[in-house]
């Protein structure tokens, strides 16, 4: 079990790219911590720097009050699961799992026992004599996890371990990982680009962009109150509705329609502010006749989600998405209202949540980029 502290950790590559930028982070003992972000945001570099596979340019990695910044990976007492599993192809499952123990000079009987325990834990008991090439993807993934847990490290690092599994297996493996982590209680840092994985697994998560943490919170908080347009557009399996709006006389003007201000945003804005109105499709309601506080449009696409439909509504140059129990034929005129408690307002210039501190210069500019991309989808 371990507490991980990062102090102004920076990783700059020889080419001049700064992958991790003066990052401060504290990961609590026993916590399941997810690092989430688009590709190239520095999350994998950060994980590899914690592991010692990349050398930090400046700053410190501290595990349990010990500065490990200059220690080689093998001396940090960590277990790591890689995206492609990185099993040793010439060794049997048993030897793979026992390898970290063998390197650390654990005697043969003891390491066989520990490997068998780990294998049993992951339902690999039958496969001990096989080689990785004879296993399915899911089995290989479990062997990789078994290798990481067998020697009982104080910190687990996962680098997108589920991304090579097919969708169904991925959900199974996810549940399994969460249960396993809860049972053994080892501090875990989990890198993923899949927001649903981070939401499902983590106790706490960091959303990263350009080597910096944009939001650090529980999954619930990140989902309900993304603190910037970047996080808002990145989180959620269905893209959030993000609509340009202007504050006019204590209400919102969205393409000529009036919506009342979300209650907790009202005090932070004044008339004339240019903002972005955000609300998730799950919190939108469709009406088939005019109502107050609604945006009007026509149904353009209806997609079946399972027990509900995702409807795309277009009108007045706006595009909105709403989850509805029933499908509506294309062209149906509808009025969309949004659950006020779940509406957010962002400043249009820097992309921050109204009332939050302003985001510094360079990141404010591209806060807009993901929103444009999301709107085009």
């Amino acid at each position: 079990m371990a507490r991980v502290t990062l102090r102004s950790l920076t990783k700059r590559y020889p080419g001049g790219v700064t992958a991790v930028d003066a990052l401060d982070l504290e990961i609590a003992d026993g916590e399941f911590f997810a690092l989430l972000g688009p590709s190239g945001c520095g999350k994998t570099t950060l994980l590899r720097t914690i592991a010692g596979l990349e050398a930090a340019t400046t700053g410190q990695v501290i595990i349990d009050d010990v500065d490990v910044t200059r220690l080689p990976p093998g001396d940090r007492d960590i277990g790591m699961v890689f995206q492609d599993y990185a099993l040793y192809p010439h060794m049997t499952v048993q030897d793979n799992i026992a390898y970290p123990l063998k390197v650390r000079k654990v005697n043969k009987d003891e390491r066989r026992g520990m490997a068998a325990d780990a294998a049993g834990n992951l339902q690999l008991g039958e496969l001990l004599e096989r080689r990785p090439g004879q296993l399915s993807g899911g089995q290989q993934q479990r062997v990789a996890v078994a290798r990481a847990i067998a020697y009982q490290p104080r910190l687990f690092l996962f680098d997108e371990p589920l991304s090579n599994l097919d969708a169904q297996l991925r959900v199974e493996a996810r549940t399994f990982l969460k249960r396993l982590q809860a049972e053994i209680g080892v501090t875990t840092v989990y890198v993923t680009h899949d927001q649903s994985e981070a939401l499902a697994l983590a106790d706490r998560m960091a959303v990263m962009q350009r080597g910096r943490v944009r939001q650090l919170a529980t999954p619930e908080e990140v989902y309900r109150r993304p603190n910037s347009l970047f996080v808002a557009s990145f989180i959620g399996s269905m893209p959030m509705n993000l609509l340009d709006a202007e504050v006019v006389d204590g209400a919102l003007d969205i393409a000529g329609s009036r919506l009342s201000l979300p209650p907790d945003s009202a005090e932070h804005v004044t008339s004339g502010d240019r903002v972005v109105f955000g609300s998730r499709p799950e919190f939108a309601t469709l009406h088939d006749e005019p109502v107050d506080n609604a945006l009007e449009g026509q149904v353009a696409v209806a997609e079946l989600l399972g027990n509900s439909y995702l409807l795309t509504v277009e009108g007045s140059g706006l595009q909105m998405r709403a989850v509805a129990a029933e499908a509506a034929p294309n062209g149906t005129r509808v009025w969309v209202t949004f659950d006020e408690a779940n509406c957010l307002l962002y400043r249009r210039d820097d992309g921050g949540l109204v009332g939050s501190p302003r985001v510094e210069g360079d990141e404010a500019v591209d806060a807009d980029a993901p929103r444009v991309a999301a709107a085009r989808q």
Partner: protein
Amino acid sequence: MRGCSDTVSGVPMRPGRGFAVSQQTVLTAFMVLALFPIVLMWLTALKTSAELATNPFGLPEQWRFDNFAETWRQGNFAVYLRSSVIVVVPVVAGALALSVLAGYAFGRFRFRGRGVLFAVFLLGIMVPTEGLIIPLYYFMDDLSLLNTYWALILPQIALSTSFGAFWMRAFFADVPGELVDAAAVDGAGPLTTLWRVLLPLARPALGTLSVLLFMWTWNEFLLALVLVQDESVRTLPVALSFFQNQYTAQVPLLAAASTIVSFPILVIYALLHRRFIEGMVAGSVKG
């Protein structure tokens, strides 16, 4: 080599019956071309000179196995075989060890001067032995190593290592980085990683390299001719050439001598050819 027969320059095609037949024909033709001189050499080695004149291509009327014994005795091949073995074993072993270490360094580590150093290694492949032989002669003379096994062993280790490092570097650079990372996380240092993780995977590449190094060293002629005059240190290829000058008229004995000299190469190749091919095509078939 799956995927070879049904893909021609990236365009998938369904191999028809005609394709299979013509493929077999071409391969058979190449096999005949490759085997003909060898078989002819064997047959010649088993005939008398008189019979060779009247029946150069047919089977011998009387199989003269004594030719081999006679050649062996007259050519003093026991001495030369011993010399060849004494040279080949340390050259192959030494060059393999150095190639692995150098290839590992070039393939997996970043260090100052890596590019320049690797270019220097490549010089060893690009400069022909003919260009090196005279300076090498004086160098060996300075070291008082002329006419010793060392004069054959040391330069050949160096020359072989330049190719070997190039060959092994390609292998090590191709190994997925995650595998090496996993070993590092598991606590293995660079040498443990090399020994326990990378070398077991390198077996095909090592096998191919061993065959190539063995072949080159066994067949090496120029160095052995120039750097060594003493008969007791002479290796088989040079001995064969001297034998040829002495027995110009005795073609069957010459053929027998050639058979003797080439025999170990054929045996090694027959034993290791599967490995050899694996190593040659490794990396060419992905996925």
